[in-house]
């Protein structure tokens, strides 16, 4: 069970409200969220379920280093924050 929050830049592409979602790892939480909001999945994961290169995920405000398996553990009341690289200057 964790709270998942998407950066507001992603909200522009499709509806992705903050939710409490079941799951014990980052990938489980994401997949459970995407089952309810499928449109956001392709912005976050590639077709092999790896984190897209321009995306970052933080659990409790710590950026996770495993971008491939996304198996970082998620505990009750944790917060998963999904954000995007910005390049504008």
């Amino acid at each position, binding site marked *: 069970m964790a709270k998942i929050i998407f*950066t*507001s*830049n992603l909200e522009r592409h499709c509806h992705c409200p903050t939710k409490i979602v079941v799951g014990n790892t980052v990938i489980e939480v994401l997949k459970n969220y995407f089952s309810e909001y499928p449109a956001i999945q392709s912005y976050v994961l590639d077709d092999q379920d790896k984190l*897209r*290169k*321009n995306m*970052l995920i*933080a659990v409790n*405000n*710590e*950026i996770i*280093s495993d*971008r491939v398996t996304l198996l970082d553990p998620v505990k009750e009341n944790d917060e998963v*924050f999904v*954000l995007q*690289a*910005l*390049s*504008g*200057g």
Partner: protein
Amino acid sequence: MDNALLTRYSRHILLPELDYAGQLKLTKSRALIIGAGGLASPVAMYLASSGVGQIVLVDFDKVEVSNLQRQIMHGNADIGRAKVDSAKETLSGLNPETEIITINRRLAEGELREQVKLANIILETTDNFESRFLLNRICVEQRKPLISGSVIRFEGQLSTFRCDLTDSPCYQCLYTETEALEETCSQNGVLAPVVGIIGSLQATEALKVLAGIGTDLAGRLMLFNALNMEWRTLKLKKDPDCPICSAT
């Protein structure tokens, strides 16, 4: 420093953390700013007014009327001029003591490396990933601190990459080299003061690193969202598999 300079920088020198010694470090420093647009405006203006000894500005654009909403070191009379020329006039007007060196073209990798080598600090203010990854690689190779800011719409991101220190993460520990479509402020818009906020923070970090005071943002990524006026700071670790900094 003579009396005129002591007066000019007195509000810095009054700060016990900075003091005369810190100000002297600033006047002996050289900052390299890549870009002369939105973020570069507050960066360059604050570094110049603060008395950084030499500022090198690299940009190949001309000032356009659509720049003026946020690129506040250029004015109406500068439309059509090279941005670096317009910037030099503004910065020299703020503080004639700071030497402004302008490069009005895109630098090839070798030339960029030479400029990084000469600088004490590097500030990334461009609007593309390619430049950000290249500059990071050169800063890691040359062991120079890099202060990176980016903005779009109502959001900004900021971090300091202490590529001069072995245990500090680099830009590529954060983002993998990406083919992702770039979103530029010219195409997507940006709220003008958001650029000012992030640029001013880049300047703040630069002055701190140059003077050797406080705690910089190494290992942290700051995010700002102006729509809900929220800040968030994320912790960032050095990636042991980073292709750029893991071997250093």
